[in-house]
Every structure is written in C-alpha cells, then in structure tokens.
C-alpha cells in the first residue's frame, strides 16, 4: 500500500516547516493520533507553545510539544537540502509505518481560497478564521510547474486499486489532483479508482466540505461529490443515509456503492475499507 498525502496546507510556523496532512496521516496510521480532538498527537502537552505565547511569538497554530519534535527534525532536513518525500519516508519508517507515505509533490504547492474577504492562504482561512468565509474559488499556487514526488506515479501505475479517501474534494484531494502528472496518471488508469464520499446525509462529518460543495457545485448529494472527480473515478462509495440519491451517478458513468461510511472506531473503518474494496472487486 502507498498513501499519497496533500501538501497544499503546508506552512511555516515559528520558523518550522509543518505538513499538517502528512502528519495527521502518520499519527493516525501509527496509532499516535488524538482521536478525540481530531488532530495532533495523543498525550500532547503545550509547554513550548505557552512559552512562545508568553514571549509574544506565533501561537495561533497549535503545535504541541511532541508534535514540535517532528517539525524540528523535518525542518532541519529540508534546510540541508533533503526533499520532502525523502524526509517523510524517513519519519514514517522511524515511527514504524510499514507502508509507503508520500507527499503528492516535493515542489512548493499551496492552497489559496478566494473569499468575499479577499484571497486567503489555507491555514489563515481554516485555522485562524475558522473556515467561516465562504469560498468562491480554490487556487493552487505553484501547481503549474509541480512534479509528482518520486514514487507517486509508479505507485499509481502499478496499483491494483486506487482509493480517494473520504476527505474534502476541494482542499484535501484537490491539491493532489492539481499536480498535472498525478491527474494524468489517474485519467489513464487501467485499474478501478474508487472515491469515498465525505458526506453523510448531505452533511460533512467534520469541516466545511458540505458548505463548499453547496456553493461551488450547487448541491451536497453524491452527484456533486462525483462531479469533483469527473473522468478520474469508476465508483463512488456513499453512506446508507444517501442511498436514495445513488442512482443519479450512473449517468456520469460512475457506479454507486452504498455502505456505512462513518468511521466511529477502528472496527468501523475496517468495515468501510472491506466493503469498498470488496464491492469494487466484485464489480471489476
């Protein structure tokens, strides 16, 4: 298995390079994530951040002490000229992650949101302003020249099955698909590509995906989710709560797969994976 992560939310905080999506993947897949809070590491403490705040330093982006250790190591390696993909592989290996974890690109690609308040970089919009600004368009600065990171295209070309995780299609999956080489590899795939809808009953479990879909795609049903991946997917996994809207997908040439998508615990996540993989396999 190869996991390809988004780097459009990467930012510099207190002089350190932070890759929030890659780190969430790494913490979650190695059992280090704080499941309850939904981000960062379990058992986290905040001494460094408190000191930074006391000294008038940047404290709006919540970096915990344990988390900071990773950012220190990564930042040092990047400054020494190591590509992000190589550092990420090293960190993942050190944390005992047995599959490959790759950033979509080693190049500088950043997500920007066009809002009524003007253009905002991803973290200003999402964290500092609590994603309350409506989004009129999503842009990926640096996407034009961005190359897929080493190993990404080979993983897509050698895959038995490609899955787009139940994340925000605009700001989590979108920045990955904004890399031209990755989009092209998906468009010419010879195996099934299955996306999992992030919506349950037309609502996002967490975050602004439903509001963005309503404003940018004109609705919050499975069809609107699928329209974000036109030409790139063969099937869409949707929640049982949206079963009644499944059959509109076939007009788009996309097979609907209805299952329970809420990952309330590891067992539910496993059932979702098995259902998605099983149904995609059975209908190959």
């Amino acid at each position, binding site marked *: 298995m190869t996991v390809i992560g988004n780097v459009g939310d990467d930012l510099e905080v207190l002089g350190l390079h932070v890759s929030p999506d890659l780190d969430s993947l790494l913490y979650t897949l190695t059992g280090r994530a704080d499941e309850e809070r939904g981000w960062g590491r379990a058992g986290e403490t905040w001494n460094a951040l408190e000191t930074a705040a006391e000294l008038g330093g940047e404290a709006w982006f919540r970096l915990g002490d344990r988390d900071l250790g990773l950012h220190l190591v990564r930042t040092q390696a990047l400054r020494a000229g190591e590509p992000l993909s190589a550092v990420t592989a090293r960190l993942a290996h050190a944390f005992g992650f047995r599959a490959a974890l790759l950033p979509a690109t080693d190049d500088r690609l950043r997500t920007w949101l066009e809002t009524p308040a003007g253009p905002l970089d991803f973290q200003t919009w999402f964290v500092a302003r609590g994603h309350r600004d409506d989004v009129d368009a999503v842009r990926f600065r640096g996407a034009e020249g961005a190359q897929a990171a080493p190993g990404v295209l080979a993983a897509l070309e050698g895959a038995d099955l490609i899955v787009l995780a139940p994340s925000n299609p605009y700001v989590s999956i979108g920045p990955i698909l904004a890399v031209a080489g990755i989009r092209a590899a998906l468009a010419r795939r010879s195996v099934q590509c299955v996306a999992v809808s992030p919506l349950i009953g037309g609502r996002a479990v967490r975050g602004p995906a439903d509001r963005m879909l309503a404003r940018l795609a004109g609705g919050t049903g499975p069809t609107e989710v699928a329209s974000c991946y036109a030409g790139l997917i063969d099937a869409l996994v949707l929640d049982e709560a949206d079963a009644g809207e499944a059959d509109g997908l076939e007009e788009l040439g996309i097979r609907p*797969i*209805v299952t329970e998508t809420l990952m309330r615990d590891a067992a539910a996540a496993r059932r979702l994976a098995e259902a998605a993989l099983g149904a995609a396999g059975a*209908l190959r």
Partner: protein
Amino acid sequence: MAAIVVPFRSAGKRRLTPLPEDLRASLALAMLADVLSACTAELSTFVVTGDEAARSLAEQVGAAVVDDPSGGQGAAVAAGLRAVDDGLVLVVNADLPTVTPGELRTLLQATPAHGNALAPAADGTTNALGLSAPSLFAPLYGAGSAERFRAHAARLGGRSVTVALPGLLADVDSYEDLLRSGRRAGPRTRAALSSLHAEALS
C-alpha cells in the same frame, strides 16, 4: 406496496460440511428464521420453498408461502416474483443470519426508479437484490452473478446501485462463515449454534 421474496432450498446447505445432514438442515432453518424476522419487520414477505419445516416457520411469522418449482434458485425466485404485486421488490437469500431491518430498508431506498440494487457477496455472487419491478429479474444466479445482474439492468435501460452492508455481505457458505457470524447473528442462529456446541461437548 413493496414486498420481499426469500427462496429457501430444502436440502440443507450442502456446503455446511462437516456437519451431519440433520444439523445442517436445522442451521439452515435457523438462519431462515432470522432472515424472516428482519424481512417481516419491514415488508410483506414471500418464502419460496418445498420444505415442510420452512413452510410452517413462514406461516408462524406471518410470511406467505409459494411452492418451489424445483428448478433451482432462479426458478424459485421467478415463482416468488409472480406472487407479488407489480412494483418495488427485494429478493433476499436465506443464508444471511446477520441481516437487519435497517439494512433491508437501505437496500429498498437504494433501488433505482428503473433498475436494480445489488448486494454482492465477496466472491461476486449475489446475496440480495432490489428490483424496481419484478420484470427486471432474470435467472442469472451463480458465479459472477452480481456483474451479470448489473449488465442485465443496463440492457433494459436501467441503472444499478451496489449495496455493501455487513449483514448483506455476510452470507454463510461454510461452517467457518457461520462461526464468524457468531454474536452478530440473529437469535435463532445463535441458539442453534450454541446447542450444536453443547452437543459437541457432551
């Protein structure tokens, strides 16, 4: 009004070896009882069978009985479909002891206005079907049937939706499957399993 057709073969599940035949028959009947309890909670249910015990079980739970023409699963389902009103209908196999009323409701909701909802087994066969009308059915059971039911709906200008829910996926093809369904199985299957274990220990 939508209905459910449940075909039940009388010979006991051949694949439930290494159990002796009488135990296989009682386990198959227990699984049918659990499937019927989920079905009758939702919709009027028609059991297609030639088995006397299954017939009296169906009558006990308020399901109608249709005689099995003994031409295999496809012929049995076709006979059941002739008994139901035109319109939305589910076909649910009798070897799904963990199926819930909620899962059947989802199968019903997922059925397109013209076409079918398919609940495939892991091996590509079909555990349950939702049909927008009985005329959408064709006897296509056997290896790879989920894909063939899908192609059949497309030939009739219809759509297909795949439904993958735990109770609709967990068909019992072997004794191992049955043990795996364990605690999640309905009460009749659980009781049959525990009496089987008690017997084995005595």
